């Protein structure tokens, strides 16, 4: 495990070097509460390194093996962390940002701050930081807090699900993420509209997140949207083959 101190906090990072010629750099950003870098590491780290990418991964603050401060969970804190990590990694030139769920939102928010530093954005079940998306996240966080009481009942029959619920419950119980994140100051829509890099957005056909696609298309007309039928919000970990089949050819058309 590699721990890095960035933006005043200890963050767990991993790196997978490119195989063959170095063609670009990609940062993989995971989702909120029960997620960690593992969902990316197991699904795309190797295929991306085979495509010549330097692959950089980290656990968001409060998640995985990164430190979990009691507070400091506004959107801007997550973007500051990414900014500090990119400085630590010393990337040369624009980077690709891949984000799962909330990780995609961090990617868009970073790109709104530094449009020229981002070569492309690929998201799974995500949206830019808009009021509508944050209202959905707030409801999701509130619902997660409510279902925590059921974790013990689930534990007996479905230990892995219970483990994920517990990871989420610890974060919600030990930190102020549930209050702070929904109350974040959001980027000006005009700043989001300055994102002019290629954007690929994947959605599960059975997930409500795809309802946000139209708003994202309006905000970012260059974005490409793909719905994977039959999948829910867990698209990345449940259908990694389909995710790879969309993301890798898209990347190949943009990496030179």
């Amino acid at each position, binding site marked *: 495990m590699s721990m890095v101190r960035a933006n005043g906090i200890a963050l767990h990072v991993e790196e*997978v070097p490119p195989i063959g010629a170095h063609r670009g750099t990609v940062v993989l950003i995971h989702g909120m509460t029960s997620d960690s870098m593992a969902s990316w590491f197991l699904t795309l*780290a190797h295929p991306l390194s085979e495509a010549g990418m330097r692959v950089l991964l980290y656990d968001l603050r409060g998640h995985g093996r990164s430190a979990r401060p009691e507070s400091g969970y506004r959107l801007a804190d997550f973007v500051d962390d990414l900014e500090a990590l990119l400085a630590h990694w010393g990337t040369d030139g624009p980077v690709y940002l891949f984000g799962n769920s909330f990780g995609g939102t961090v990617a868009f928010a970073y790109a709104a701050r530094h449009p020229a530093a981002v070569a492309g954005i690929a998201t799974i079940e995500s949206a830019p930081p808009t009021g509508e998306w944050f209202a959905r996240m707030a409801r999701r966080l509130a619902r997660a807090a409510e279902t925590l009481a059921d974790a013990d009942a689930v534990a007996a029959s479905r230990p892995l699900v219970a483990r994920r619920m517990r990871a989420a419950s610890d974060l919600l119980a030990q930190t102020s993420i549930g209050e702070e994140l929904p109350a974040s100051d959001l980027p000006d829509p005009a700043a989001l509209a300055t994102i002019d890099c290629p954007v690929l957005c994947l959605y599960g056909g059975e997930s409500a997140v795809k309802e946000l696609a139209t708003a994202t298309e309006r905000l970012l007309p260059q974005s490409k949207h793909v719905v994977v039928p039959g999948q829910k919000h867990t698209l990345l970990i449940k259908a990694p083959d389909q995710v790879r089949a969309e993301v890798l050819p898209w990347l190949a058309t943009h990496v030179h």
Partner: protein
Amino acid sequence: MPLDQTATILADVAGMLRSVLGDFGDDAEITMDTTFRDDLGMESIDVVSLAGRLQARYGTAVNFALFVSGLDVESVGELRVGQLVDYIADSLAKVPATS
């Protein structure tokens, strides 16, 4: 492969696992048959966090991302320590010795 090489790699990997497990790792008996999740209580993120330690020990000779590629967050926990040890031994056998 030679048995002493397997034993050496197992000892290296057991050391890495103990440091991932922290205080819980001191008493854990780690053999080739030990499973990451059921025997050591490791979650997928704990297994993934071996990446940096393996890189520090073996450099690029051992491609850990390839080893776990295609496993899902559940099946990675079902891996046995011996599968990782054998993979490391096979990977090292493919590169010329440098020491």
